[in-house]
């Protein structure tokens, strides 16, 4: 959601955020809605903060009871006269949600299944090489599928045969006979299509989604909400009634949340609950409607889209893993492609991504270098990595713009750092992680001697934002270029400089290797020399070349950028690292992230054209 569109809301619910203090510049939009348009501002939070102080309703709750609060609103709304009689809600849920879809008979709700949904998996412990598996208590969603009418489309079977695959068995499970690689992958995608779900347009079938939702939330009575959340019943009911009164054909309610939702262990479930509520109320895709995720850092959205996160490759494609059927490119695409919606184009995104990795070396014959790409084999996220480091299984660390010595379970993380052979810190300041061997509380207290810490530590000072040309992706996924205004002092360098120069050195060190395991790094394309001679002499990579690689271009004509992700192909003729950013730089002289055109008066958002 665009923060500024909160100005159009008739009611703004801020929950799990102290927006007034932590996103003050965006907070002016809900304030404007309140002060100038008479909107109601609601703050639901365990603490009475500056956000509460200006809210019309402040609803206190016990930390972590957000689902009970939201669930209570859902129940209250589903049971209200207005929701059941206003044709707007009925039309909305029937046409813009899956409320009418019928769920297959093997699905069992928590109420009927001893407190858990059907499909809860046993913890299996992972592979011996990486016994850290954070995915305990994961659900297998096979029992959560829609009931589907058996396939009648004979043309689809023919297309499947063409791709070298067996058609689906009547049970719907896939049995590929030949794992032949594409391209083209269109027949593969078509073979994954399943018949549409059965529907009950009257929304009365007990197995339709709406009825399952009704039954599931039936337990969230006002008494239960009061008991669990500690929020007085009258306050809770006022919140629920205000949200309902400010939703409908001519009114919208928006929600805003921040890390006080996401940092709960059940964060995704809280957010899912809010999404369900907003869907029931028709609060999506309309002015002043939606859910505002207030992210905390300048480009935290960017580092999720361009994933310096182990589990995904560019644009939310799952990282190839040894724990699933991902042996070949064909296997990966068969397992991960969603055949409906825009994700049906995933083969084009993956092949274009592999071309961005391995360039000319990636060909249809070698699955575009898919085998050179590493596979994950467990949970390699922040906390398991520190536990593995603590057990001596991690030898080196590159730490750029982070200070883990003061964060989660900090003592354990500092103990882990002491077991590293080497640590590289690149930051604005010589912080606690950089000199953990010197100023850690354990060292100051004399429990640990620096002489006994064998870690080799490097500190590289960073260039600041105004000394760097680059792009941030803000909370609403707007890409904005910041330009270089001044030279960084001394040995301060940009973060991109560091990685580019490290990569150049490693490329040289592996240049002569004939080992199969080094093919990935040998074939990795790594040419980002700056257009400007002075910057080139400094070794600074070209931000524009990097952005171009993310945007994508025609492989045979590198100067011709793709105009957007609709141009991508699955045969290697397009090179594009990040399909989701394709279109930001649609032509050589047209970097849209660098646009500084203001909106004309009264035409909000027009600059984004």
């Amino acid at each position, binding site marked *: 959601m665009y923060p500024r569109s909160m100005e159009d809301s008739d009611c703004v619910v801020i929950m799990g955020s102290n927006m007034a203090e932590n996103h003050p*510049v965006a907070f*002016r939009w809900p304030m404007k809605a309140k002060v100038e348009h008479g909107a109601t501002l609601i703050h639901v939070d365990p603490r009475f903060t500056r956000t509460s102080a200006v809210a019309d309703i402040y609803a206190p709750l016990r930390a972590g009871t957000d689902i009970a609060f939201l669930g209570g609103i859902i129940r209250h709304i589903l049971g209200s006269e207005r929701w059941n009689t206003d044709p707007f809600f009925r039309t909305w849920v029937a046409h813009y949600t899956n409320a009418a879809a019928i769920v297959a008979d093997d699905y069992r709700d928590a109420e009927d299944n001893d407190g858990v949904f059907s499909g809860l998996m046993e913890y299996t412990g992972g592979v*011996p*090489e990486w016994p850290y598996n954070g995915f305990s208590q994961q659900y297998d969603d096979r029992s959560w599928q829609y009931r589907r009418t058996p396939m009648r489309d004979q043309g689809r079977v023919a297309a499947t045969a063409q791709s070298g695959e067996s058609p689906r068995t009547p049970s719907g499970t896939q049995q590929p006979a030949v794992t032949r690689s594409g391209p083209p992958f269109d027949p593969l995608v078509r073979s994954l299509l399943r018949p549409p779900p059965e529907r009950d347009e009257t929304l009365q079938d007990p197995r339709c989604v709406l009825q399952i939702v009704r039954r599931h939330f039936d337990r969230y009575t006002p008494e239960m909400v009061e008991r669990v959340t500690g929020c007085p019943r009258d306050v809770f009911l006022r919140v629920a009634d205000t949200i309902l009164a400010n939703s409908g054909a001519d009114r919208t309610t928006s929600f805003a949340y921040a890390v006080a939702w996401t940092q709960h262990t059940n964060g995704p479930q809280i957010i899912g609950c809010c999404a369900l509520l907003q869907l029931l109320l028709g609060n999506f895709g309309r002015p002043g409607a939606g859910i505002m995720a*207030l992210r905390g*850092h*300048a*480009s*935290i*959205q*960017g580092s*999720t889209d361009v*994933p*310096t996160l182990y589990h995904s490759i560019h644009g939310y494609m799952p990282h190839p893993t*040894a724990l699933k059927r991902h*042996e070949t490119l064909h296997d990966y695409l068969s397992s991960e492609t969603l055949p409906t919606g825009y994700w049906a184009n995933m083969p084009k995104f993956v092949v274009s991504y592999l071309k961005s990795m391995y360039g000319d070396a990636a060909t249809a014959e070698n699955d575009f270098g898919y085998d050179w790409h*590493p*596979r994950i*084999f467990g949970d*390699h996220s922040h906390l398991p990595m520190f536990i*593995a480091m603590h057990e001596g299984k*991690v*030898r*080196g660390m*590159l730490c750029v*713009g*982070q200070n883990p010595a003061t964060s989660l379970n900090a003592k354990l993380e500092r103990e882990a750092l002491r077991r590293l*052979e*080497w640590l*590289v810190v690149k930051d604005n*300041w010589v912080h606690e992680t950089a000199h953990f061997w*010197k100023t850690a509380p354990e060292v100051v207290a004399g429990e640990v001697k*620096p002489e006994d810490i064998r870690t080799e*530590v*490097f500190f*590289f*000072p960073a260039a*600041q*934002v*105004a000394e760097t040309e680059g792009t*941030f992706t*803000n909370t609403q996924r707007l890409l904005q270029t910041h*330009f270089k*205004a001044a030279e960084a002092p*001394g*040995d301060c360098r940009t*973060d*991109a400089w560091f990685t580019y120069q*490290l990569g150049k050195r490693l490329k040289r060190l592996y240049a002569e290797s004939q080992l199969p*395991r080094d093919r*990935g*790094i040998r074939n*990795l394309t790594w040419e980002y020399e700056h257009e400007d001679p002075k910057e080139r002499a400094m070794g600074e990579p070209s931000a524009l070349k*990097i*952005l171009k*690689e993310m945007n994508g271009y025609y492989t045979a004509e590198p100067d011709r950028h793709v105009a957007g992700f609709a141009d991508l192909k699955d045969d290697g003729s397009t090179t594009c*690292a990040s399909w989701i*950013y394709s279109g930001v730089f649609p032509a050589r002289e047209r970097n849209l992230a660098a646009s*500084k055109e203001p909106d004309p008066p009264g035409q909000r958002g027009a*600059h984004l054209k």
Partner: protein
Amino acid sequence: MEISRRELFRFAGGGASALGGLAAAGVSLAPAAARAQELRIATARVTPSVCPFCSVGCATLVHTVNGQIVNIEGDPRSPHNEGTLCPKGAATFQLHVNPNRPTQVLHRAPGATEWEVWDLERAMDRVAELVKQTRDETFIERLQNGKLVNATTAVFSLGGATLDIEWNHLQQKLMRGLGIIAIENQARI
């Protein structure tokens, strides 16, 4: 608007907030403020930038005189902030021009009790050597179950969430190119 001397003191409440007090009282300071601004950035070059703190994406203008940053303020053209900044964003200048800012590469040898200043190139060469050595000694081509992985978990890359997408792209590309799969970011936590 007429203000008595007594009222002026009440509004001012102290030297530092005198101007804010006057502005709050409805006294227009526009000519004086414009004059002061003109003096400070009269000869400055203006470069558009973005605030590096939260995710709202407030646009800023960076003023430089002879290549030195003299001022950073909100960009009035931005639809996000329309020229405004929060106190943190307004202090971005101090990230750049700050006497405590480290500008040298530091190295701490195993067991050492002090930092040593190192040459940048030497440090980069040594880091590349360590990355290669660790990767090569810990590389797993296949798991015991025979599955191809071409990866190592012995090197951990952890990044912040205020870094450019250009860095994110290069970092994940280089790490995955090498087979380093433990790539994480502040965005997780």
